[in-house]
């Protein structure tokens, strides 16, 4: 039996104390919204990747590839002529550029006649008479999706110039596909003949898709030519999703952060509304409301608030998510390839997490306050001071619990073996523990401050803080979490930025770099150019590089065959095996990048197997070098060895060192060569700038999310302060009656608030640095395999303190104004 009047009393309380009800609701709304938004952005990016990958993969179960290269036409032609051949579809694709268009687009060439069993959506776009004829016979015939056509501003019949390896080709739009799912946003769909022509892949295929059952797989395996590899669709999918792993990890960390801050906000809001109503609960208890009834009333009230807050939060989250998703899409487009997120992907997982946070976290956060409320003695026989006393007694207990969680977190992240998930679990535990410790730390800091504070009103402010620890503790903890996360992520990004910068500056120590036009699409230098450069007068030394990607243990490892001039060698930061590394290198051992060494557990002296046409090539590891170029890993080997294994491959890059340091003279000489060769001449500085710009773009979304979490924390502090100051209205009225001026009251409130911000920041700094440490040592290491020197930026730390103070200061404005302007008389009269 539950009394509706009781519930009405509770809900009317929320209505009556609109600010408080609103802030409690805001806590839930924001928590839900931020978590949902980040999750939506995350799944939006993932869905874009998956759609593209899936569309290209179609119903294929396997794929024939030539590791590190392209597949000769003959492999496919010969197989498809044999009786009993399973369904096969040849594919030629590559990335092309379009002038004035950021990012690259995937040009995919198919043979429609082979596509039937594979990519029915793709083949299905050809629903016009005459289509087949034009598609097959008209060079450059192009099909693309409606949204991409709109973005590129092309219509059927119009032409589009694409750039590949410095060569331009003209495509003509044959058909704009308007069906919902047919053509992904980044796809330029052409006949395989057109693709071969544009991508300069005469006689070569990117791969052949297959649909195989066990028998057919055996059939294929018996007929596989040397060097050709049969991969499963699963292996393929992993390759594609890996591309975005770094980016996604970034977002996941942010989502977790939002979840944590959201939970604190809800907890904060609910605790407040409970503490404030002790009087009311006392009266109810006196007239015969049982503990259980009170408990249920509070929970029901929280549930209503939670449902309402969650609903609004979901709406806000979807709206916010659209913005974030656009931002993510923009970043992905610039860094990887074009995705335009036209529709938001509302996946059930994201929604469930957000709803769980809104409803469950609110209820869980209410349990403790509700339990306290239910235990309210009839009438308020316990004074506020007794209540605060109880809260103070709980502080060390929470603190101990917090220390334990913090230690568990560190153990999970740094001591126990495990993957990235484990690292994140550790990080979560660490932050939660730190938050629980916060009141205890505040107490300690406070005892120092209390002695130092000047007498009078300031000392009063300091004392108040300790007195109101039961309510302020949580608000400070919420602010602390937001600030420390900001510090943690900030320090990590800064450390990484610094490391990447140092690494690149060291590595790119040549004066000029020469590559073929379209090098980013794999264009290579012609041998004649290499000879010409070698003859130049002003060139003192040359390093030569050629590369290919090889699958090693499910990773796409870049293998680089290099002739390294002495200064180039000095650019390598060798982490182990330094002493005799170069001698070993010259004798056929290889340099392995740190991520690859970490994932394969390689150390100098170990051996590594590289797949080649003639079976695995076993090489010895000379040294491990610091590298952030690829999370998949890179292997450097001497040019001579590379030539022996993969003969006749043109060079990708030349690094030139100027004679007598006269870079300009050398540049003039090299530039003359550019007239007859399609080459790009770049200085190390330009590459460095471009690389750092890419780095900053990757982390732009991190910045946005940091600000978002600070806004959430700010609202948390605001709600805490408001509730507190409003509750203390009578106290202020008494002080006013005793003769404090309005200014002094406002000052008292602002001072307390700023003190709170300062304390939160003080706790946040070490916690944030600890977080950064875990992020670098555990998360980054386990996810990517690289390490980096830990660099704490003083400016960032100062910023954090300022942001904390600013948030607290802003949060104090309204309560200060209101309390100072309130007429003391009615408050004094009220009981």
């Amino acid at each position, binding site marked *: 039996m539950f009394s509706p009047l009781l519930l009405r009393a509770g809900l009317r309380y929320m209505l009556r104390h609109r600010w408080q009800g609103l802030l409690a609701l805001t806590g839930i709304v924001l928590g839900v919204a931020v978590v949902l938004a980040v999750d939506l952005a995350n799944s939006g990016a993932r869905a874009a990747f998956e759609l593209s990958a899936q569309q290209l993969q179609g119903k294929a179960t396997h794929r024939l590839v030539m590791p590190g290269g392209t597949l000769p036409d003959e492999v496919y032609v010969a197989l*498809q*002529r044999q009786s*009993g*051949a399973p369904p096969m579809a040849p594919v030629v694709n590559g990335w092309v550029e379009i002038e004035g268009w950021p990012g690259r687009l995937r040009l995919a060439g198919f043979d429609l006649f082979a*596509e039937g069993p594979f990519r029915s959506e793709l083949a*299905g776009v050809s629903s016009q*008479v005459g289509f087949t004829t034009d598609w*097959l016979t008209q*060079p450059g015939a192009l099909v693309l999706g409606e949204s991409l056509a709109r973005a590129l501003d092309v219509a059927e019949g119009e032409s589009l110039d694409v750039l590949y390896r410095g060569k331009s080709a003209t495509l003509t739009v044959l058909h704009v596909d308007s069906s919902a799912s047919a053509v992904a946003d980044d796809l330029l769909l052409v006949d395989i*003949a057109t693709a071969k022509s544009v991508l300069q892949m005469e006689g070569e295929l990117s791969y052949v898709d297959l649909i195989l059952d066990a028998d057919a797989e055996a059939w294929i395996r018996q007929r596989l030519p040397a060097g050709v590899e049969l991969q499963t669709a699963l292996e393929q999918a992993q390759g594609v999703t890996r591309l975005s792993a770094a980016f996604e990890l970034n977002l996941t960390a942010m989502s977790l952060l939002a979840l944590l801050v959201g939970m604190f906000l809800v907890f904060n809001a609910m605790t407040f509304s409970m503490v404030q109503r002790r009087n009311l609960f006392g009266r109810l208890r006196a007239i015969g409301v049982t503990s259980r009834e009170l408990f249920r009333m509070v929970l029901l009230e929280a549930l209503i608030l939670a449902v309402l807050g969650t609903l609004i939060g979901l709406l806000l989250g979807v709206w916010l998510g659209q913005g974030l998703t656009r931002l993510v899409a923009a970043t992905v487009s610039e860094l990887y390839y074009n995705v335009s997120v036209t529709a938001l992907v509302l996946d059930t997982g994201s929604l469930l997490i957000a709803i769980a946070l809104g409803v469950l976290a609110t209820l869980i956060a209410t349990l403790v306050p509700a339990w306290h409320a239910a235990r309210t003695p009839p009438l308020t026989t316990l004074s506020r001071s007794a209540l605060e006393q109880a809260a103070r007694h709980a502080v060390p207990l929470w603190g101990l619990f917090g220390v334990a969680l913090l230690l568990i977190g560190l153990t999970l992240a740094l001591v126990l073996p495990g993957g990235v998930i484990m690292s994140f679990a550790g990080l979560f535990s660490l932050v939660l523990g730190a938050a629980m410790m916060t009141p205890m730390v505040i107490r300690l800091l406070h005892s120092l401050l209390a002695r130092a504070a000047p007498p009078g009103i300031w000392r009063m402010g300091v004392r108040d803080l300790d007195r109101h620890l039961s309510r302020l503790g949580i608000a400070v903890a919420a602010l602390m979490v937001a600030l420390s996360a900001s510090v943690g992520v900030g320090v990590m990004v800064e450390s990484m930025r610094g490391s990447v910068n140092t690494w690149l500056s060291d590595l790119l120590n040549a004066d000029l770099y020469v590559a073929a036009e379209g090098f980013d699409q794999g264009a290579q230098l012609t041998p004649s150019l290499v000879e010409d450069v070698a003859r130049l007068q002003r060139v003192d030394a040359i390093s030569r590089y050629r590369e290919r990607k090889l699958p090693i243990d499910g990773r796409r490892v870049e293998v680089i065959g290099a002739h390294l001039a002495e200064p180039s060698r000095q650019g390598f930061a060798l982490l182990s095996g330094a002493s005799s590394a170069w001698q070993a290198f010259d004798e056929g051992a290889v340099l392995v990048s740190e991520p690859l060494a970490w994932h394969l557990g390689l150390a100098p002296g170990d051996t590594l197997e590289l797949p080649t046409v003639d079976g695995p090539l076993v090489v010895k590891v000379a040294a491990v070098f610091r590298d952030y170029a690829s999370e998949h890993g890179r292997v450097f080997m001497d040019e001579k060895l590379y030539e022996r294994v993969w003969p006749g491959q043109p060079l990708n890059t030349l690094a030139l060192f100027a004679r007598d340091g006269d870079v300009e003279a050398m540049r003039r000489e090299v530039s003359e060569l550019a007239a007859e060769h399609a080459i790009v001449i770049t200085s190390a500085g330009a590459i460095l700038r471009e690389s750092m710009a890419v780095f900053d773009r990757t982390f732009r979304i991190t910045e946005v999310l940091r600000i978002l979490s600070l806004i959430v924390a700010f609202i948390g502090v605001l709600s805490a302060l408001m509730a507190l100051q409003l509750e203390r209205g009578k106290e202020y009225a008494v002080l006013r009656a005793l003769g404090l001026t309005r200014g002094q009251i406002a000052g008292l409130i602002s001072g307390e608030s700023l003190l709170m911000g300062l304390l939160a920041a003080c706790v946040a700094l070490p916690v944030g640095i600890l977080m950064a440490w875990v992020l670098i040592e555990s998360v980054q290491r386990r996810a990517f395999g690289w390490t980096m020197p830990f660099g704490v930026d003083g400016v960032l730390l100062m910023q954090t303190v300022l942001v904390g103070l600013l948030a607290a200061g802003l949060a104090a404005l309204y309560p200060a104004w209101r309390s100072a302007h309130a007429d003391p008389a009615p408050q004094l009269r009220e009981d």
Partner: protein
Amino acid sequence: MLRGCSLLMLLLSAWLLTACGQEPPPPAATIRVDEAMGGTPDPDFARAFEPRAFSFPGDHGPHPDFATEWWYLTGNLESDDGRRFGYQLTLFRVGLRPGEAVQDSDWRSNQVYMGHLAVSDIAAGKHYSAERFGRAAAGLAGATSRPFEVWLGPWGLHSDGDFFPLELEAQDDGFGLSLQLLAGDKPMVLQGERGLSRKSATPGNASYYYSFTRLPTTGEVSIGDAIYRVQGNSWIDREWSSSALDTDQAGWDWFALQLEDGRELMFYQLRTREGEMHAFSRGVLVERDGGVHELSPEQVKLTPLRYWQADDGTAYPVEWRLQVPGLELDLSVQASLDDQLMDHTVQYWEGAVDVSGSHAGRGYLELSGYAGGP
């Protein structure tokens, strides 16, 4: 013979409409298919205006100046223990555009090949069929005259000599053929006017058409894991043209009958939209010694006797009475198996038949233009 002439255009369009998309073609698209059927090929293609001097083995190979061409093989086979099979392998060449393709890539071609393969296991009451497409580039599909070869992926015909003995290889998922066709005693038959077969009154709406009407055949038929050694007789039609169906023609019924007395009868009835026999329907009776009697509509009387209904409701006349009073022929032609439906991009019925009545024999029957619309 008309088979495939416009059918090919229709098949290509329809394949893209139905086979690739999961949805049936929208009504508007169907109308366009209809238009495509009546449409004339690019005027730059060569046309058959008058009889030509055939030259072999060159003419066994492709004629890319013409829009369409086919190598059409059917036959009745029997295993050593008397199990009966019918088979069909059709390889079509279609010129999408006249002349050489723009050579931007080795994979570019103006020529496309389509293949239909079918085996009727009469005793088991089963009919197996498959369809393939391929471009005539990069070795995916093509034809040469010396040595003779036509291929489309794993399906193909080839000869180490000029044409015979002819090896046929065609395997698909679950069934296949591996046959050798010998020249036999019968000479090549030039259809129509010395090999020029007119399809309508419009000049140039004609094809070059010759046949081998009785080719002793041996080899293997495989169905599932079973392999049957077989022998029997095959029939080859070779035809190329750049013509199209006239607007008043709805479809055709084509008979290729090998009589036990050593004669063969071929007759195609072009049906008007009203279901009447069109004036340009033609046929030929090949004597034991290779002598021919041309058959015109006035000489032949065709009566459908029984219909078999496909799953989609289309009724196919699978039993006929074929009368040529002038030659004292009164034949009953019955499908050896009712369901020999070729249900691919375009639906038609093609299968082995038994001949009885005034003369006994076996043969092949093709019924087209019955399913929805044209």
